[in-house]
């Protein structure tokens, strides 16, 4: 059920972008000009480009970790007032199979989904610089599934660990964009989000022990299972400085 919800959230901006011909991008005729259409809205579609820019330009040894989870941002703003809607989306899957340790094999899949929607106002500071500020609502969900198994001489174990971290939040955001060309922008943003975080973890261990009767030499095995089920809540109120760079298209 949760995945359906996530799927809808993922596909929503795709629909939004693809439906520009239908509703979002509307044109009206400027008074006194019968040939040149005047846009009533501007749309911005951006992708996080830190890795790409690092590949293209050597930006020193600074190793600041990019914690902005939004890989794609999209906004639609009124051409007249600059007021509009903004949304961000991020989805990553990280999967590993670790067999390097002879004692155990471990398989991990971590999937993380982040989204935010908000209202904002964009305004030009100069010909080349554009600022925006707004207020966002955000949601993040991260699932971590890890399975392990190990087989010792008299003891074998298998374990399933499922962790979920999710948060809802809200807070202000300010952004600064630079027009590389009329249609291409490079931007960054700072946020001050409040987050209400819930972390739950369930670890199920199944262990089989083999014992040998010293007198008869007969082997007998005993299987036991244990479950650790924990849940925690926390809050976070943090200022995120501009680290993530977004490469944006204006259309």
């Amino acid at each position, binding site marked *: 059920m949760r*995945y359906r919800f996530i799927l809808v959230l993922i596909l929503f901006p795709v629909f939004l972008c693809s439906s520009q011909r239908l509703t979002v991008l509307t044109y009206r005729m400027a008074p006194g000009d019968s040939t040149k259409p005047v846009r009533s809205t501007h749309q911005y579609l951006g992708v996080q480009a830190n890795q790409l820019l690092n590949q293209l330009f050597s930006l020193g040894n600074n190793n600041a970790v990019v914690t902005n989870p939004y890989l794609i941002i999209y906004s639609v703003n009124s051409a007249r007032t600059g007021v509009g809607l903004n949304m961000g989306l991020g989805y990553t899957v990280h999967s*590993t199979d670790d067999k390097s340790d002879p004692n155990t*094999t*471990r*398989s991990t899949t971590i999937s993380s989904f982040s989204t935010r929607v908000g209202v904002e106002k964009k305004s030009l500071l100069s010909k080349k610089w554009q600022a925006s500020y707004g207020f966002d609502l955000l949601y993040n969900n991260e699932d971590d599934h890890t399975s392990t198994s*190990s087989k*010792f001489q008299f003891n074998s174990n298998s374990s399933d660990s499922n962790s979920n971290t999710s948060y809802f939040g809200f807070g202000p955001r300010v952004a600064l964009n630079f027009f590389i060309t009329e249609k291409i922008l490079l931007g960054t943003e700072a946020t001050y989000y409040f987050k209400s975080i819930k972390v739950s973890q369930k670890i199920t261990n199944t262990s089989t022990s083999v014992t040998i009767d010293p007198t008869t030499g007969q082997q007998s095995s005993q299987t036991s299972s244990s479950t650790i089920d924990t849940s925690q809540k926390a809050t976070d109120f943090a200022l995120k400085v501009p680290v993530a760079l977004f490469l944006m298209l204006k259309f």
Partner: protein
Amino acid sequence: MNKAKLALLVLGFCILFACQKAAELNTREVVLTLPSTLDTYLSDSLNNNIPTLGRVLFYDSRLSVNNSISCGSCHKQALAFADNVPFSQGFEGKPTFRNSMPIQNLVTAIGFFPQGDLVGVPQVPADTLSLFWDGREKLLKAMVLRPIANHVEMGITDLDALAKKLSGIPDYQDLFTKAYGNPDVTQIKIADALSQFLQSIVARSGDFPLTALEQTGQELFFGKYNCNSCHQTQALNGYKMGGGGGFLNIGLDQTYRDIGLADVTGNASDVGKFKIPTLHNVALTAPYMHDGRFKTLDDVLNHYSEGIQNHPNLDFRLKDVSNHPLKMNISYHDKQAIIAFLNTLTDYKMITDPKFSNPFRVK
């Protein structure tokens, strides 16, 4: 976007979500293989059964909450007990917060090991008592339990439950009896055995004659670039006592996301200070720094050559006469010579010594 493309997109997402892989069952059986004659770990140790037990514990993945990783998963003998990734993975595959430090010559970092409990009175100057990148632990016996209890690393929240878990394993009943005279497993014994094993890991520099290039590198290290003013390769602990207390800000960043020692002391003057690592086996312990930002020794030297950032806590030895960050401008040839010298600090005996190796063997 036409309907066919949309359908493909939806299908793609569905496949992505459906790809939750089932864990592959481990069919390899491992057996504990210890030598019939005990290895000698510490010259002054009366009971080598204790570090032997420590060695088994160090490599046993059952010390993690889901039996997935051991201390040895992130501290690999072939790498001077460091790891070859910036951040090792914890029991759930999540990255740890800092780069795994090498484990060697800890005896010189802590000096005193109280017997029987986790509380002791340091017998050496306070600035030499420091473990971890930020020096947050003073006692080795307490330090060894931290990764086990860490919620990202090994995830054991109840160390008494761990003791109970281990006491049900036949091998440990025998090992604890040999080490401590009875099969009772306690967290204090686990800590004691692990710390005695770790104490015994000592790296020494090779005594091979240096080549011309290595000799040049040594002269540059001690002379022109004065690396020795912080990294004392001739000392086992590897750094100079005093004048920074073993912790320095070397100008890695202008603003620090990880504030290092200041996280422990709460002092603004400690922001960006991290433990000076020993250079013994430095050729094996890449990537370097607390966050593994430098992949190679060449990258490290490039930092000192022209990458030092200004910071209020930047160490005075890394400033020029105008109080600006020093640019050592190390030439290509000098870098190659220094790296050649650093490579001579590898202790091949330590990294291949069977008594420090994983005692679990695939049957």
